[in-house]
């Protein structure tokens, strides 16, 4: 990433979510937490150290962990179950669909290593289809915090929203987007920067990339509105439609496969309600590789410079249409 006024975040969102979960143990004395032998990676151990009696390490057995979580929840006890995104949203997906979402149970999912933030671990650990699988299942809600503050607050949103909620978290710390006064609600979004030429919607780590791109765009005379769509499902259709009615162009940038991500969802929203020049950035039907996060984002077309290019092209298209 090139230029931004943002401050480096001290901790990754996976840690911030788990730290809040550990605090929340004092607010709610009933809920249980499960992990699949990566509690030191998801930081769920922060809860386990304080409340060992309701912390369960289920071993490297994600399918069974979610089945057991369904068992707890069917008995009426809320469970937060954590692992890495790929193992949750692919290996255990049928359990999540038929035994958690179908009966609409209170299982909250802590999903780390979202998108290419698992960078150096390589493709087996990079969850780049998680938003597609999770948001396709009825009853599931999907949240993605962009920074540690958002992660802590979205923990509360997840906990207090009835039924299953999936929260995508990141492996490494990036930038701070919010201060403590920020607020988050299920189905909400935050407009981080107002603009008149184009709407850029993103989530998770892509938010700081979008903010950086908007700064660059401003220097070349393009005024971009930046929306953090932290609630992917349900998403904030009202705010996004209002924004594109004003700007007349929409770019969605996500660290995910382009197919069946938020870009597809919002592209259809726009087509249905208010068609505007549209583009979406994401992986182009391909697997990435191991390596430095910033190099990967550059190579696979997701970095702020790619957002900048795509936004510039969309604004040109819009002006052509208007001419």
């Amino acid at each position, binding site marked *: 990433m090139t230029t931004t006024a943002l401050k480096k975040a001290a901790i990754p969102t996976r840690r911030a979510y788990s730290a809040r979960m550990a605090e929340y143990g004092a607010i709610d004395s009933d809920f249980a937490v499960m992990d699949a*032998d990566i509690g030191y990676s998801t930081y769920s151990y922060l809860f386990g150290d304080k409340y060992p009696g309701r912390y369960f390490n289920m*071993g*490297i*057995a994600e399918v069974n962990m979610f089945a057991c979580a369904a068992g707890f929840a069917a008995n009426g006890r809320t469970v937060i179950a954590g692992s890495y995104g790929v193992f949750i949203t692919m290996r255990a997906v049928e359990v999540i669909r038929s035994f958690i979402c179908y009966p609409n149970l209170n299982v909250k999912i802590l999903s780390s290593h979202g998108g290419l933030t698992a960078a150096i*671990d390589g493709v087996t650990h990079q969850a780049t289809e998680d938003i597609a699988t999770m948001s396709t299942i009825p009853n599931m809600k999907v949240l993605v915090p962009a920074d540690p503050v958002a992660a802590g607050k979205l923990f509360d949103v997840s906990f207090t929203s009835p039924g299953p909620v999936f929260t995508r978290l990141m492996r490494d710390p990036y930038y701070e987007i919010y201060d403590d006064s920020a607020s988050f609600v299920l189905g909400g979004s935050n407009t981080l920067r107002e603009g008149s030429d184009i709407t850029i919607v993103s989530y998770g780590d892509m938010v700081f990339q979008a903010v950086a791109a908007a700064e660059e765009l401003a220097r070349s005379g393009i005024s971009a509105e930046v929306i953090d769509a932290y609630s992917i499902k349900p998403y904030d259709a009202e705010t996004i439609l209002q924004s594109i009615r004003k700007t007349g162009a929409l770019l969605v940038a996500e660290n995910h496969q382009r197919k069946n991500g938020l870009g597809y969802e919002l592209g259809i929203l726009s087509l249905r309600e208010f068609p505007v020049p549209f583009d979406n950035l994401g992986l182009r039907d391909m697997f990435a590789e191991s*390596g430095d996060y910033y190099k990967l984002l550059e*190579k696979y077309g997701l970095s702020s410079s790619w957002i900048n290019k795509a936004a510039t092209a969309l604004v040109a298209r819009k002006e052509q249409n208007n001419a």
Partner: protein
Amino acid sequence: MNQVLTSDREARLLKLRQMAQQVRFHVVDMVHHVQSGHIGGSLSAAEILTALYFDIMNIDPDNPKRPDRDRMLMSKGHACPVLYASLALRGFFPVEELRTLRQFESRLQGHPVIKTPGVDMTTGSLGIGFGVAVGMAMEAKLSGASYNVYALLGDGELNEGVVWEAASAAQKYRLDNLVAIIDRNNLQNDGVSDTIMPMEPIDRKFEAFNWEVRRINGHDMQQVLQTLEEARDFRGKPFCIVADTVKGKGVSFMENQRSWHGSPPNDEQYRQAVSEIQGALV
């Protein structure tokens, strides 16, 4: 005659023991260099992989995809530093390449991929590599091929239910061309395996699944070699070797420590580790 045979074997063992230390050196060296990678479970498997790649397996570094070669499934894919070190020292790619581990555009991905010379299959998501090994062994039987398929599993990996689905299929099809090796270091990501998810008696579990089972000290090269030879030639059933090992073996301060599962050494720790590994060579 017997005398010659014994000393031949001694020479072979000595060479393998020295090679295992070289493998250890490169594991520590690459993980230190790139400051990322799984050291503990690599060091616990150094003898096993050395015996496989430098003695037991029928492989050809000049023709890594030769159809009649033996296969090795690194089912505990996170421990790929030990696999990459073995492959490089065996001649599949230059030793210098080891220091590109996990880096952008390297052939040595964070978890093994099938396109790297010498790597037989993509792995990294625990449990499933073993099922792939079963599939390879079944396919070998179907096509009348005579090679063996070896699979290395972690003891934590045995938590995955799919491991036991694979073990069932292997006995159903009497896959005597399949050898499973369990790296029983009694540690996984979050701590002691016996605490996280008790799996013992591992040997008796595999016996109950109708496998032929041996339990050995996975750092005693003589036992490792002899048992792998027996497994290679064994017929009638799939063969499982439960190798009792020490996670971080060969570097005193890494041994039996959860914290060395996935974290890299700093410069000071690197120097000490290298001196211990090289000290053990003489």
